[in-house]
Structures are given as structure tokens and as C-alpha cells.
């Protein structure tokens, strides 16, 4: 099965086999999902893969930063807020303070609807804030924000 993909703003088309991941502007969309909960990692990974994104999951902010130094072509980071050792907010800050990483869009997820928390993250440069449990419709609205 072939998938037509139009890279908006670039004005060209690329035909790619669907199982190689969604191609946007010639680059595969690779999302990094960060969550200390194995249940939530499985869930977010499945939702993302169902949308044909390539997904890597890690269980901590520390591992996320390690991976980011090795893997430069991450289209988006989706991170849980409450994690031991390094919170999603602290990860967001580290990414936005890094000259190498700051262009990567970061989305924060939380099971709690705390307006202060949401505002803090948005002010720090988060693209969006998702309430858990995350649904496929939440993820589809992130498409346009991916790098």
C-alpha cells in the first residue's frame, strides 16, 4: 500500500511505503515518548504507531537527554509531567535551554488538570499540554506541530 504525502510549504510529493513511517519533507517522523509508567508508555506508543509515526520510548528524563544527544532527528518529544528524579517540566527546560535541542517541539502530559502547572509548561515553551489518558484525537492535533 502506498501513501501519498504532501509536504506543505515545500510543494513537493513523495510516494512512500506505509510501513516505513510517515514521511514529512523527506524525513521520517520520529517521536520520543517519555514516561516512567510502563502502562502509559505502552499506550502512547500504540497511539503514535497507529498514526504511523516511528516511536522510541524511555522511562526517564535522564534517558531522554541521553538519547537526544545520539539521535538528532527527533520530530517531537512527548513527556509525562510527574516523574521521579527529573520531572517533565525539568526535561522541557533542559531541552529549551539547549542550543542543539531547543527547536524540538515538546508536549507535556499529565493525569492532573492543574492550571498553574499547565501555564508554567506553556511559558517554558511547551507546544501543548495533554490530559491523560491520552486519546488518538489528542495526538492527531499535534501533527502540524511536529518538526
Amino acid at each position, binding site marked *: 500500500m502506498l501513501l501519498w504525502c504532501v509536504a506543505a510549504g515545500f510543494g513537493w510529493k513523495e510516494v512512500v511505503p506505509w510501513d516505513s513511517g510517515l514521511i514529512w519533507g523527506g524525513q521520517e517522523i520520529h517521536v520520543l515518548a517519555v514516561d516512567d*509508567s510502563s502502562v502509559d508508555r505502552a499506550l502512547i506508543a500504540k497511539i503514535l504507531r497507529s498514526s504511523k509515526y516511528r516511536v522510541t520510548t524511555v522511562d526517564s528524563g535522564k534517558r531522554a537527554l541521553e538519547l537526544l544527544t545520539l539521535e538528532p532527528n527527533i520530530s517531537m518529544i512527548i513527556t509525562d509531567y510527574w516523574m521521579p528524579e527529573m520531572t517533565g517540566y525539568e526535561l522541557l527546560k533542559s531541552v529549551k535551554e539547549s542550543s542543539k535541542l531547543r527547536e524540538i517541539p515538546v508536549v507535556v502530559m499529565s493525569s492532573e488538570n492543574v492550571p498553574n502547572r499547565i501555564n508554567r509548561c506553556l511559558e517554558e515553551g511547551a507546544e501543548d499540554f495533554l490530559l491523560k489518558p491520552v486519546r488518538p484525537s489528542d495526538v492527531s492535533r499535534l501533527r502540524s506541530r511536529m518538526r
Partner: protein
Amino acid sequence: MFIYTTPVYRLSLALQGFLDEQFYQLEELQDESSPNFVEEVVTLFFRDSSRLMANIDQALEQCPPDFHRLDKFLHRLKGSASSIGAGKMKNECAGFREFCSEENLEGCLRSFQKVKKEHTILRQKLENYFQLLRQVVPVDKATRSGS
């Protein structure tokens, strides 16, 4: 989606007091590429939750109890329950958390008994459900549109 035989319908009805809409979201995510997705996530949940409950047990036995640590475990337990659609268990955890924030040890102990009971019942019901699903021969497999 399979067309289930009557016993499975009856069993899924029995599950309805315990599960909320999120469980059906999980079933919607299950597809040919991950045909056992729901059972896999549920397995992760019980592995995670059993460990958390052992931690909660320990935290409650401490003298004086560490309510701060307890709250962290509860946050995680409630989150996982929410992610798999274990609505009843999620609500019990919320009640437990209230007592925890009040540092009401007796309330916590009572709540914990309820949570443990819920956990055991849910595990049994879900095990039965998956076992029955395995025994059912698919009568008709509707193709998913769009995937």
C-alpha cells in the same frame, strides 16, 4: 471486532461496573499489528500495580507513616488504573488519596483494604474475560476502516 457469543457478552457486562470508557478505547486501539494489545497493557498494569501496592503496604507500616511517599505511590496507581479504564479502582484510589492528604491513617488503612479488594476482583474478572476471548472462535472479523 469479533461477534462474541453470549457468555462473553455476559462477562463483559459484569466488567462494566468496574471498567469505564477508557477500556473500550484500548480495545479500539487493538489491531492486526498488535492483536493482543489490550491483554498486554492489562498485564503491565497488574505487574505495576502489584508492586505499587506492596510499596503502599510498607509505607503504611512505617512509624510514623510517610504520607508524602504514600501520595506518590497513590498518584502512580491511580494514573495506571485510569489509563486502562479501571474506573472503580481509580475512584477508590482517589478516596484513599484524600485520607492521605489529611494524614488520616485509619482512613488510609480502610481505603487500602478496599483498593486491595478491588484489585483482586478486577484481576479475576479480566483474567476470565481474556480466557473466554481466547476460546471464542471469530464468527466474523469486520475490517477496520482507515486504521
